């Protein structure tokens, strides 16, 4: 398979975008220390989410075209499972912590 010019420029755009997002995340973590810590966490998560979207769009070439219906379907399924696992893990670990180590973890 030949790499088409449009595909190459698309990859390059994606590369630059993800580079900017990564550097942004680093500068928030390292530089912006006067910002409230909660605010910084929110910003970091937001940047990470945008990073995922950029990579899906530019590196995995996912878009809204009708022939990609099944690809989107599998993507949504993956998102569903990831949310179930993440949510479940947070719920379980928080709950176990409340029951078992609440006193010890007060600091």
């Amino acid at each position, binding site marked *: 398979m030949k790499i088409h010019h449009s595909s190459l420029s698309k990859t390059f755009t994606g590369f630059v975008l993800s580079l900017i997002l990564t550097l942004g995340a680093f500068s928030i973590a390292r530089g912006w220390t006067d910002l409230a810590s909660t605010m910084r966490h929110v910003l970091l998560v937001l940047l990470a989410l945008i990073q995922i979207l950029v990579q899906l769009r530019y590196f995995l070439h996912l878009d809204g075209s009708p022939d990609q219906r099944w690809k989107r379907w599998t993507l949504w399924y993956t998102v569903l499972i990831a949310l179930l696992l993440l949510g*479940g893990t947070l719920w379980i*670990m928080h709950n176990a912590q409340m029951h078992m180590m609440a006193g010890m973890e007060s600091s």
Partner: protein
Amino acid sequence: METLIFGRLNYHDIPYDNPIIMATLGGAIMLLLVVAFLVWYHGQWSYLWREWFTSLDHKRIGTMYIVLSLIMLLRGFADALLMRTQQALAEGGVAGYLPPEHYNQIFSAHGTIMIIFVAMPFFIGLMNIVVPLQIGARDVAYPFLNSVSFWLTVAGAMLVMLSLGLGNFSHAGWSAYPPLSEKHYSPGPGVDYWIWGLQIGGVGTLMTGINFFVTIWRLRAPGMTWMKLPIFSWTILVTTLLIMLAFPVLTVLLALLSLDRTLGLHFFTNHLGGNLMLFTNLFWIWGHPEVYIVILPAFGIYSEVTATFSRKPLFGYTSMVYASLAIATLSFVVWLHHFFTMGAGANVNAFFGIATMVIAVPTGVKVFNWIFTIYRGRLEFTTPILWTLGFIVTFCIGGMTGVLLAVPGADFQLHNSEFLIAHFHNMLIPGALFGYFAGYAYWFPKIFGFRLNETWGKRAFWLWLVGFYLAFMPLYALGFMGMPRRLVHYDNPLWQPYLVTALVGTLLIFAGILCQILQLTLSIQQRRLLQENTGDPWNGRTLEWSIPCPAPAWNFAHLPTVHARDDFHVTKQSGQAPPSLPYSAILLPAASGLGPIMGALAFLLGFGLVWYLWWMAAVALAGLVLCLLVRSLDDETEFLIPATTVEATERALRRIASSPYNASQVSQ
């Protein structure tokens, strides 16, 4: 300097003071040498290398997967026999013959081997053989990746096997919970063998998952829409989906544990901010879908076998498909039932308990579908259908004990007891293994061109079935009597009769395994008598039976077009002779030595990491990268089979089919 070269390897790591291990090791090495010598004597090494080890043919890779699985089954079963004997003996004043530290390694190895290196390679072998044939493809989507996956699995298995004679294996159970599996409590190489054996094998499995998902998604024959896909391929599609979603969790988990152990980090330690409960959580996020990964392919096999030998279309095909998908999704919301007792609150336990009961519903749908397929069918009692019937009955018992364990209150009582051991063996032996055996007997002729001896196959089945009940039903009772799992010794004379019964059951299973070995040897001897010339020994329904036995390297001389579910059956019913089309040249993936080489390098990488031989790990890793580079730059990855060869082979295989000698064979 010495540690730089030899890491922590020392000649004391060979357990020469343990007669049991040394005798086993001596026997194994002798056997290997004899086999190696025999192959050399018959001048077959280069044949093996050219036609098998380096082959990218999915049927050959699949066969090698099954051979690996059967060898590992013998190892895992030997472990089972050792444990059952120990427990039958070690009551009161009798200590038994296994020291505790050895016994702990045996049950850890048994679990790891049976799940990762018996169940996984067995169904992966079957899906390798069957899926491309069922969907009308000439090979898988990524043939080279397939070879690499297989050899990575071999590398993982060999690491686990090597731990027998060099160092020791993990003593922390197959689930290796910290803090026991952390460096502080397990300083030796045992847990590292477990980590790297699983990690390397797991990466192979993950790549196979991707490979077969893409294969089924992209390479189905024209006309084979989703609802015309044979049910075994459907279950494999769902299985690969589970592999792709669950195995990365295992990869990350093992990486974190190895970082803890090797670099002194604190993910799962019980001090400095580590959280060992997170390990349990992550382990079962992989571990529970893993259960369905090994059982769904077996469900697919039962479905194929039931339909074929009942001479009826599968009852409730659509509900079968949706049940598989429902099981896949639900398998991701039940993992906490493995650790109800860890300390989460009532709400959490109730949610996961109910979810666990709900997953029994789609499974029950499947059981009813099999029963309704048999209902008013003309059931033929062949070996595959015997395995299936044995499965349906026994699996229902296991399913019900599972629903019982899903009640958190009951689980608090039965957790880590022999009841649990009985339950999950009840799911995995009749559930998964019986299915693989059914598939083995069912598809054997498609690969080798002759059927397996039925008499010995049936004897093996009955011994396995009766042996299973004798070996595991007493464990349910023992669980209720309060016996915990993994005991090397106990002080309760009431338990002993049950454990002796379990030993008798295990010996019956052993006899069953001997029958299977005999069945294979006899069948090879009687291969002319058992020769299968029609290509369709069972009057099958799906595409794999439309091609000759043994299947030629290109599978389909003409790629089929599918018009119906059970397309081959419909074609046969219509009574139309297949049109004689002209043959054309076929492009197939060329053999590549890089697969076995990468497997060997991965083995060295794992070995280096286990023994802290950093130079070896670095060299092996560089070698692996180099192999990928060489492969990427290789343009000659395919070879052309000329049309004349295709025609000659197809005619030879099909002409036998119409000879009078053969007709008399078939009617027998």
